[in-house]
């Protein structure tokens, strides 16, 4: 008997917890409000199913618990009932899947005017690279990484010379401009995760992954690593600041380009392809 009561309490408690508890997502700071809406819709559909199933169970336990002389019904199957339940479930599932896939379609379609920003992860810090005046990032290769060139930018690629390098410091982004985050790791898996942006993606050594979003709120946001990357994983933090256009421009002007960081004298030494190849073997 107690179990029927507890089952009812589980439903009431879960619903009240959902409605009253202070724990909910962080206020959104990107264009991915659709993700939040899909999530809320999923909560409603699944919450209704959970409540219905558990309350039905509670009723059965209360109504059909063993008493002297009770005999169970003999009812092997009911094609009609089973077909209806299957159909209703399929409709419910489709109702969640369709909007989900629609929003996913947007998520994977990067707008043409998105600015590219590269994030480079390593154990256990974040660095960034912006395309510079030409709007293009130079090529890169993990084999070119050394203390003078921590991001492995190809010194022979003219597109890379004006790239802005932000090593182990905060990233700034202008508000309301779509940005395509190009994600690179030089050692193990990492994941660039800012809860307020909703979007996230793993960073995989040997390849470049990406996601896109539009920052919609100025402020300071914490970056966390969301893919286990070794002992320092829990402490791999960074800062992204979403600025107004003016603040962003003044920040950008204080940053150094790849050419400035390496200096003209050193470029020659770095370009030496024989040295780079030698290291690969």
């Amino acid at each position, binding site marked *: 008997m107690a179990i029927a009561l507890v089952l009812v309490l589980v439903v009431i408690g879960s619903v009240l917890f959902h409605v009253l508890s202070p724990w909910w997502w962080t206020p959104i700071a990107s264009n991915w409000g659709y993700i939040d809406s899909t999530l809320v819709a999923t909560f409603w559909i699944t919450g209704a199913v959970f409540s219905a199933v558990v309350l039905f169970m509670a009723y059965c336990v209360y109504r059909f618990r063993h008493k002297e002389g009770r005999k169970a019904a003999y009812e092997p199957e009911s094609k009609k009932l089973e077909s209806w339940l299957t159909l209703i479930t399929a409709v419910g599932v489709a109702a969640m899947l369709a909007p989900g896939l629609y929003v996913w379609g947007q998520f994977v379609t990067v707008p043409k005017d998105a600015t590219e920003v590269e994030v480079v992860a390593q154990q256990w810090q974040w660095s960034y690279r912006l395309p510079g005046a030409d709007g293009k990032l130079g090529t890169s290769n993990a084999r070119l*990484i050394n203390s003078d060139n921590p991001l492995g930018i190809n010194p022979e690629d003219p597109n890379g010379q004006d790239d802005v390098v932000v090593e182990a410091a905060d990233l700034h982004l202008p508000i309301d401009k779509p940005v395509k985050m190009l994600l690179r790791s030089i050692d*193990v898996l990492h994941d660039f995760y800012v809860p307020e942006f909703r979007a996230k993606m793993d960073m995989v050594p040997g390849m470049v992954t990406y996601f896109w979003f539009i920052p919609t709120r100025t402020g300071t946001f914490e970056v966390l690593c969301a893919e286990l990357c070794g002992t320092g994983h829990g402490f791999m933090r960074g800062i992204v600041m979403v600025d107004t256009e003016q603040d962003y421009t003044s920040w950008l002007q204080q940053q150094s380009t790849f050419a400035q960081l390496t200096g003209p004298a050193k470029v020659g030494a770095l370009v030496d392809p024989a040295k780079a190849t030698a290291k690969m073997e």
Partner: protein
Amino acid sequence: MVDVTPHGADLIPPAEVGEMDLYHPHSWWTKYVFSQDAKVIAIQYSGTALAIGLVALVLSWLMRLQLGFPGTFDFITPEAYYQFMTMHGMIMVIYLLTALFLGGFGNYLIPLMVGARDMVFPYVNMLSYWIYLLAVLVLVASFFAPGGPTGAGWTLYPPQAILSGTPGGTGPGIILMLVSLILFIIGFTMGGLNYVVTVLQGRTRGMTLMRLPLTVWGIFTATVMALLAFPALFVACVMMLFDRAIGSSFFMPAIVEMGEQSPHNGGSPIMFQHLFWFFGHPEVYIVALPAFGIVSDLISTHARKNIFGYRMMVWAIVGIGALSFVVWAHHMYVSGMHPYFGFFFATTTLIIAVPTAIKVYNWVLTLWRGDIHLTIPMLFALAFIVTFVNGGLTGLFLGNVVVDVPLSDTMFVVAHFHMVMGVAPIMVVFGAVYHWYPKMTGRMLNEWMGRFHFWVTFIGAYLIFFPMHYVGLVGVPRRYPELGDTAFIPPSVHTLNEFITVAALTVGFAQLVFLFNLFWSIRHGKEAGDNPWRATTLEWQTAGTPPPHGNFGKELPVVYRWAYDYSVPGAPEDFIAQNDPGPATQGGPATRGGPATQGGPATQGGPA
């Protein structure tokens, strides 16, 4: 050797087996240690799995202590935390749940339920256990290795799993883990072939496939899946072992490790993830399907009612098993694989919700108009439905690709998979132990201790994992030993973490009551008799309790009906055993088109 395997065209085992055809142990050693009797092997598997599971339980306490009270326990460094986390996950999924459901329940129940004298390859069955034990010992050895066990997470993702930034990554920890997994898979394959062949070839006369109890269907399908899925993990482990031990580059691209160029080049870390989850997702159902099967039988028996929609239940098990091989990359939505995969895997993943939902409906519809005995197995079965529905529904969040993006790698995922493949199957394990312990020992488990165990475990587990979803919704990432000062995490989350830790410790200690009960009741439990639950299936109709070597005495039972003839109208009792020829079936419920009408022994052609 047990000679119940059919010869030539004669596919029906003989009803009588001569004394000399059964393998008989000749000494204490071959009877209790190097035993070839599936029942003894089952108890060995279960005992070993529970013992190593106890280690995983203690590791979970240590993790919860750190998460609830960070900074209080000096010995729980981040390195130690990751090692606890990795070993907890791996032990629970592989060495406890897989081994217990298939090696434990599979060995005990398959021969008894299908009416066989033993597994068809008893010697290989024995080897299976000893290799499993070796795998467990190698795993335990890594705790004592220099640098300790690996802390790469149970997913063992390269490159970090074999690099110096991960605990145990450059020491023997990761090697021992990979070797242990390889051994486990070898041992499992031996057992698994046995379970499959026994179900297909070892059934007694009249036991058609559509008369098998759902327990056997669940274990059988899970075993077939495991035989197909584990090779992917096997290959991945061998390749990673090569990468680590001899410097190959299967999964290792050119990287810079702590400022040094590594010698690796050209490997693909994502390829490992595909191999891992090609195994890893079916693995979820390898644990879940036996639980589905067992809980169906618990509900039916204790509600005194036939399982509703038996044929649909069988096809749902088979359908889930097949679909589970095309959903693996839903674990990889944010892995960096091609984003268009998301459309395919989200669709397959949500389709699998349909057969799963059918199973849930049929369980609760079995309760409808039943005669529900609130025994301990029934209570655990009800708790299973609640936790499984809860965990299954949160799967719809994570399976729906775009909803997964903000939630992946947060505590929401941790809460989800613990609810659906931790708590829910373990509820079934407990229900099953309370249900079959009387058959295994001849004694009932103590009722008072059992009820205490049930209430604390069910309510406690729900209180641990339900609120944990909301910690993830706030945005707290998983696999963080401490949260530090993080602007978006309010202090109330820390309070909630303390609460969860207290609940976890409480539930943990309730398991000690369960363990005590297991030992105490062997001597002090109430006498059970042969069929204390008045159940229909063959294991309750044995010659004695516990069943003797050879299970069924001189003659094997002949099966006349399906496993769910409870409360049949007109029958003298509220159950009719499967081997009960009963009154003439003319005009009885069997003619109503239920599965009971399918092929009696007479229509099988008989062995003649």
